[in-house]
């Protein structure tokens, strides 16, 4: 597809972000900044219990609170007596592995019983935020507490209470296999078995969720300001609920303070819109941080792995059983678990592989994806396996990896698995052995091995960890871009994807500047408004760079073609005689004869040549439909020191080698990688959502849920390799989700290596207390 590798001028440059001036001077506009005339405020009454029957709701006292306009309980508002729409209707992505998927209706307000602590039970709408909060406190709900299902193991045990009366607790199942696994185990010199667990954690955006919904009764239109990552899904859901054409719903997302996968449609979105139409007033809901802690979690997946290997360190086969605790509701089919299966083989050749997975409901907060979405679990499993093989055979972990790695000559490499878009997986280039060796060089692997031995003599614990990762990204169906040049030659790019910090205004301006050959400064990217583009598929799954980036490129090329055609007509020459340069179209043989883009934009308004060129104006819209995903890759290596007294893990050096194809802005790629890696370090060393056996969340605030802070973060040695993908014209691969994938595995390896004594690290996170226990038990 990629015809010529033209020398890039603007694309890839670490240009200053266009959004920074606004954001850094406090001029960003977030949902909570939206203040409308006569606006009402929504507050949610939540179940304090993980599992409880709702016997009665008494709203009389709440209705008497000054400023309270109404209290909504099930039955009060027919629009809200419905389940939230499934994000992925079963079979949407034709998941090739999934053979069971049960959907439990997730009602806007709990019906009959609450199934997790924090579930909305009633809502209060009031004249002020305070009145709404006081009203919510005054709603009296009578509960009968039921025994809670607090873990996946608990949920699967015979006779376990049911989270949802209508369905068993196992709601999803998948399986797949490649190669002859039985033969692999027969031929094995040894077999390793282990249970490996990734904890429950959560995306922690700096801005929580929020919505303002404003019904215009005269025009019968709904305007919504929202933090949702997929505004079009919200638009469609609201249109369905309100039973109006989706063109009558407009979703605006201005600046959004991070999302990471957690910001999707929730109860308050439907409620705000329904109540705004009923009450003919705008309704606002802003999530508090405490609410954010019980709105969506992620990961919480364990893996029973059996490995057949040879004494020379080569892998023969892997048998993997996966159990994912999805909390009370699951709107994402088995996407995360499928991602784990499809990323677990990582950079390595495994002749035989069998995977089976189960999704299990519990009385905990629902799962949504978070950055990495099944991939950190995958790297954790694979790198742990390789480290165990190294420990067992006495071969250095780096060497064990080199003995199993896919050679560059075998690219594009197919491992026999199928992606969740039902296309056979094919790694589209990259040089994994080179990445691994380069990472070892950048870390100073050999040197750290020496230092490790010396430090040990003084009782100091130094260790090295290695993790490789893959990031399939750019899943379809498509994204579009419209580019318009105005009468002064200024350029607008319209997109159907909103940004929550990914620098769209910068990177897509670079794509446009590069391929339309206009100055970066003259390009403005406009997005986050469903009135501007009618279709969009969301900012998530590392899909925007590939989909929207290529759409911008295609639209730029299409617009150039249109300019060429119009210029040929205006100048009275053939299209082949027209050259474009410096925002001007001119006759190749007579460069003085020409028109600027600005002049052509004026001409295009009424010129009849435009009849065949799509109508008036210098504008072009194109959509990019990827055939399937493209694969980015990375290797992380870390040297750590473990304090044997306290169990604290400190980073001595951290090196990353990363390949995401052609970068659109190298500084933005670095930012994505660094931020993602920091999230991964949080997951490796501290973050965990902990519940007690009654289903009460014990880590409900930042006093107990640790996030890494600036001073905790080491400098990263980053090296980029650039292997353009042949799967799209820009040659770009995904860059959004790779960062957090490897740190858990790398730290597990490093801490295990530092402690030595044949200890095995099998679960995350490595909090100081857990490291202390590992040291204690290794003695």
């Amino acid at each position, binding site marked *: 597809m990629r015809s010529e590798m033209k020398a890039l001028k603007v694309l890839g440059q670490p240009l200053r972000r266009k959004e920074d001036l606004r954001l850094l001077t406090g001029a960003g506009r977030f949902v909570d900044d939206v203040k409308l005339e006569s606006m009402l405020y929504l507050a949610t009454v939540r179940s304090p219990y993980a599992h409880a029957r709702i016997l009665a709701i008494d709203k009389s006292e709440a209705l008497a609170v000054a400023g309270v306009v109404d209290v909504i309980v099930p039955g009060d508002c027919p629009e809200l007596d419905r389940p939230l729409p499934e994000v992925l209707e079963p079979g949407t992505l034709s998941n090739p592995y999934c053979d069971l998927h049960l959907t439990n209706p997730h009602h806007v307000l709990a019906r009959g019983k609450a199934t997790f602590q924090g579930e909305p039970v009633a809502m209060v709408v009031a004249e002020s935020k305070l009145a709404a909060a006081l009203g919510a406190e005054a709603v009296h709900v009578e509960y009968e507490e039921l025994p809670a299902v607090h873990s996946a193991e608990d949920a699967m045990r015979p006779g376990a209470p049911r989270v949802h009366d209508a369905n068993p607790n196992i709601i999803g199942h998948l399986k797949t296999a490649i190669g002859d696994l039985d033969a692999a185990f027969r031929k094995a010199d040894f077999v390793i078995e282990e249970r490996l667990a990734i904890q429950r954690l959560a995306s922690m955006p700096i801005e929580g969720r929020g919505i303002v919904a404003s019904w215009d009764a005269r025009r019968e239109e709904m305007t919504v300001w929202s933090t949702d990552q997929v505004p079009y899904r919200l638009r469609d859901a609201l249109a369905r609920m309100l039973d109006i054409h989706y063109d009558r719903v407009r979703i605006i997302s201005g600046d959004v303070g991070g999302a990471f996968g957690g910001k999707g449609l929730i109860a308050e979105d439907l409620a705000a819109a329904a109540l705004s139409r009923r009450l003919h007033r705008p309704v606002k809901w802003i999530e508090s941080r405490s609410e954010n802690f019980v709105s969506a979690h992620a990961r919480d997946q364990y893996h029973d792995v059996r490995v057949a290997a040879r004494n020379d360190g080569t892998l023969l086969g892997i048998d993997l059983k996966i159990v994912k605790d999805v909390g009370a509701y699951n709107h994402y089919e088995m996407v995360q678990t499928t991602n784990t299966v499809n990323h677990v083989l990582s950079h390595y050749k495994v002749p035989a592989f069998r995977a089976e997975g189960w999704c299990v409901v519990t009385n905990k907060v629902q799962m949504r994806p978070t950055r990495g979405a099944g991939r950190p679990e995958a790297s954790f499993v694979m790198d742990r396996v390789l480290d165990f093989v190294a420990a067992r055979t006495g071969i250095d972990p780096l060497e064990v990896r080199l003995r199993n790695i896919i050679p560059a000559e075998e690219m594009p490499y197919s491992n026999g698995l199928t992606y969740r878009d039902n296309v056979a997986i094919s790694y589209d280039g990259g040089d994994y052995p080179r990445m691994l060796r380069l990472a070892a060089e950048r870390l100073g692997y050999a040197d750290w091995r020496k230092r490790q031995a010396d430090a040990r003599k003084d009782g100091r614990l130094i260790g090295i960890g290695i993790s490789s990762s893959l990031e399939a990204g750019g899943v379809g169906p498509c994204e579009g871009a419209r580019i318009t040049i105005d009468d002064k030659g200024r350029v607008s790019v319209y997109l159907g994807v909103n940004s929550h910090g990914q620098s769209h205004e910068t990177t897509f301006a670079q794509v446009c500047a590069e391929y339309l050959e206009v100055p970066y400064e003259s390009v403005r990217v406009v997005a986050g408004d469903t009135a501007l583009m009618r279709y969009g598929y969301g900012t998530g799954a590392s899909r925007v760079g590939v989909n929207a980036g290529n759409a911008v490129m295609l639209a730029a090329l299409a617009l150039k073609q249109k300019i060429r055609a119009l210029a040929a007509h205006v100048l009275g020459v053939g299209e082949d005689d027209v050259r474009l340069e410096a925002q001007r179209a001119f006759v190749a043989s007579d460069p003085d004869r020409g028109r600027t883009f600005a002049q052509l934009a004026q001409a295009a308004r009424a010129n009849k040549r435009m009849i065949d060129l799509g109508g008036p104006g210098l504008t072009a819209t194109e959509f990019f439909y990827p055939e399937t995903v493209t694969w980015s890759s990375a290797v992380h290596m870390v040297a750590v020191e473990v304090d044997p007294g306290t169990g604290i893990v*400190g980073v001595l050096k951290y090196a990353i080698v990363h390949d995401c194809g052609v970068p659109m802005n190298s500084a933005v790629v670095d930012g994505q990688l660094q931020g993602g890696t920091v999230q991964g370090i949080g997951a490796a*060393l501290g973050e965990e959502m902990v519940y007690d056996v009654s289903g009460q969340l014990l880590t409900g605030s930042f*006093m107990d849920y640790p*996030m890494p802070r600036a001073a*905790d973060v080491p400098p990263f040695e980053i090296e980029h390799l650039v292997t353009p993908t042949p799967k799209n014209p820009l040659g770009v691969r995904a860059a959004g989700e790779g960062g957090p994938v490897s740190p858990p595995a790398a730290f597990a390896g490093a801490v295990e290596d530092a402690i030595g004594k044949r200890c095995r690290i099998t679960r995350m996170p490595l909090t100081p*207390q857990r490291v202390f226990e590992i040291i204690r038990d290794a003695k």
Partner: protein
Amino acid sequence: MKPFQYRLAKSVPEAVAALAQIAEARPLAGGMTLIPALKHGLAAPAALVDLGGIASLRGVSFENGELVVGAMTTHAAVAGSPIVNERLPALGRLAGGIGDPQVRHRGTLGGSVANNDPAADYPAGCLGLGATIVTNLRTVSADEFFTGFFSTALAPAEVITSIRFPVPMRAAYVKFANQASRYATVGVFISQSANAVRVAVTGAGRSGVFRAGEMEQALAKDFRPETLPAHCVALDDLNTDLHASAEYRSHLINVLARRAVEACMGAPSRHPVRHGGAYAF
């Protein structure tokens, strides 16, 4: 948060009068504990009497061999005070290790000590130095002031005005910070003066800060880390929570006490890995 009255006091007597007059009034210092408590509905006082406008409650001085710190002096001011860092650097470092910069620039000595959070740092400093808490009514020794889990000898409408810290020969505070809150999971303050060794432990005890008598005796005989007992408190008296079991806390008391003694002896730290710095988390 429920609505409440707000009074900005200009003097201690004015503050005390307001506190005595209004039922369920509370003094407001830096608000780092009180405001979150209001927000979460854990406290709902009828009025807040802000001590922030009383200049006499701020500042550090050295009088009669004691360091005197005003109740409204922020942690950052103590950490940055030349007098503190010259006379009692261990106290400066304690203040500089509280929470994060925002908390250190709002939170105050008086607020911290009045609150007596079982994981706070200053109570260990007060007890480990044998400080005297000065209020509008009286002076109270640290040994008598801290009476248990979030409780003190303060009477209603009694306001801490300053704290007097005797200056020992040497002292050190070593803290193991909670990864999330940065409060002390365990903190050990050790001081040695001509007539006594004091060892105060915060974060670990079920009823708040306490003195580790066995450790004091061992160090009084022989001030070296090796002499410290491995376990100095019954596990039943130690906290177990999400972040640390009683067993882990007991272990940490010993490890941190050793490091504090080493620090008192001027040994350079052999432990590069620490929370909140050196890329440890």
